[in-house]
């Protein structure tokens, strides 16, 4: 304990991608220790998909027609459900304070968290969706398109949702408010995704939707972390 303080502030700070990797790794580890947080939205997704045929009837053509839309709405709601918890525990146990006073750029830390969120909510949805799609009589070629749209779309959903989660963290009525803020923002993603799948189902050209979803994902990847970081600074004041 006799060493002197040699540090000049930033010399040995790990690089900014280290911050991204560290938060991702930590959140994945946390998800691993609490698998319920990952599984609940998946069950919710499956249940919404089950409710729909029960409500409108099980006829084959109806299911085929409405399948893409139902799956997409269910995926959207399931993501929304999981977004709630994105920053709450960090806010409550003081980790957010540590992020704010860390030398790492906050948008990178936020991006790391969002990436972990996508890996634990969006990606599992992508892999569960084929099972449900098949019950909706979706042909296998269309299932592939659907998985692609879901994969691209949930990236944007996680990123946009992180802005809403950051704005509502620490508020009493945060949960209901989060849906109110995020659903209008998420609407274009759902329009693009669900319709690309519908087009694929009717053998039309669906690439426009995929490209638009990809562009949306890239745009939100580059902009959303800054908005989220700003929102977190404000919410944690």
């Amino acid at each position, binding site marked *: 304990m006799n060493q002197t303080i040699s540090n*000049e502030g930033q010399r040995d700070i790990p690089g900014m991608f280290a911050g991204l990797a560290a938060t991702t790794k930590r959140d994945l*580890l946390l998800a691993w220790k609490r698998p319920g947080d990952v599984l609940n939205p998946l069950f919710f997704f499956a249940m919404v998909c089950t409710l729909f045929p029960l409500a409108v009837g099980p006829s084959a053509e109806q299911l085929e027609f409405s399948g893409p839309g139902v799956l997409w709405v269910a995926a959207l709601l399931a993501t929304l459900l999981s977004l709630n918890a994105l920053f709450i525990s960090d806010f409550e146990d003081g980790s957010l304070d540590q992020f704010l006073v860390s030398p790492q750029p906050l948008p990178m830390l936020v991006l790391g968290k969002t990436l972990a969120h996508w890996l634990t909510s969006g990606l599992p949805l992508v892999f569960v969706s084929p099972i449900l799609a098949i019950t909706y009589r979706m042909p296998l070629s269309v299932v592939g398109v659907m998985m692609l749209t879901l994969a691209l779309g949930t990236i944007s959903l996680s990123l946009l949702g992180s802005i809403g989660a950051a704005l509502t963290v620490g508020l009493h009525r945060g949960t209901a408010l989060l849906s109110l803020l995020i659903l209008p923002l998420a609407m274009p993603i759902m329009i693009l995704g669900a319709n690309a799948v519908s087009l694929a189902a009717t053998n039309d050209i669906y690439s426009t939707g995929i490209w638009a979803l990809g562009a949306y994902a890239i745009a939100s990847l580059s902009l959303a972390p800054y908005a989220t970081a700003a929102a977190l600074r404000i919410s944690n004041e």
Partner: protein
Amino acid sequence: MTHKLSGDNLTLIRGERCLFQELSFALESGSLLILEGRNGCGKTSLIRAIAGMLSLEEGTVYWDDVPVERVRQTFHGSLVWLAHRTGLKGDLTLVENLGFERLLRAHSSQDPEEVYERLGISRLKKLVLRSLSAGQQRRVALARMLLSNVPLWFMDEPFTNLDREGRVLVMELVEEHCSRGGMCVMAAHQDVEINVPTTRVKIQ
């Protein structure tokens, strides 16, 4: 290399109340700044404002005579934050928690085992933090502070949840840190006697 932390004309209004007004201070390497006042008088707000977590109504905080907004990364790379909410994850073990910190901040070259030993937490390394007592969790947070190699310590109410022995330990650690050329900002509602050059700021 010596550092200097100073605040000039700090004013903060939260909601209805003006918490502090035209407050100034200066802190050099090797000394301690204590923010005193009753509970709920705005000490925590002040220390958070100095650390850059709250935006001030007026006034500027300077790190080495440069406004901190201009050198945010250097400033935050030079400090470590310890507060009531420890920022440690209850679901992770001690080692996992501190491993995460090492990836964010400059860390010292000293052996973690020595630090754990000194803080009396070396037996708890493999345990999930949730299963530790509040005092033990506090000690883990102290370990994080010791393992990071930074000149500036921020401590918000460092004595809560600690027994007598723990409080003495904290005072010793601060003394050592300052004698090695570090500096420390502390918000406390009880009397603190540490044998280093001390500036006191009272908040009404």
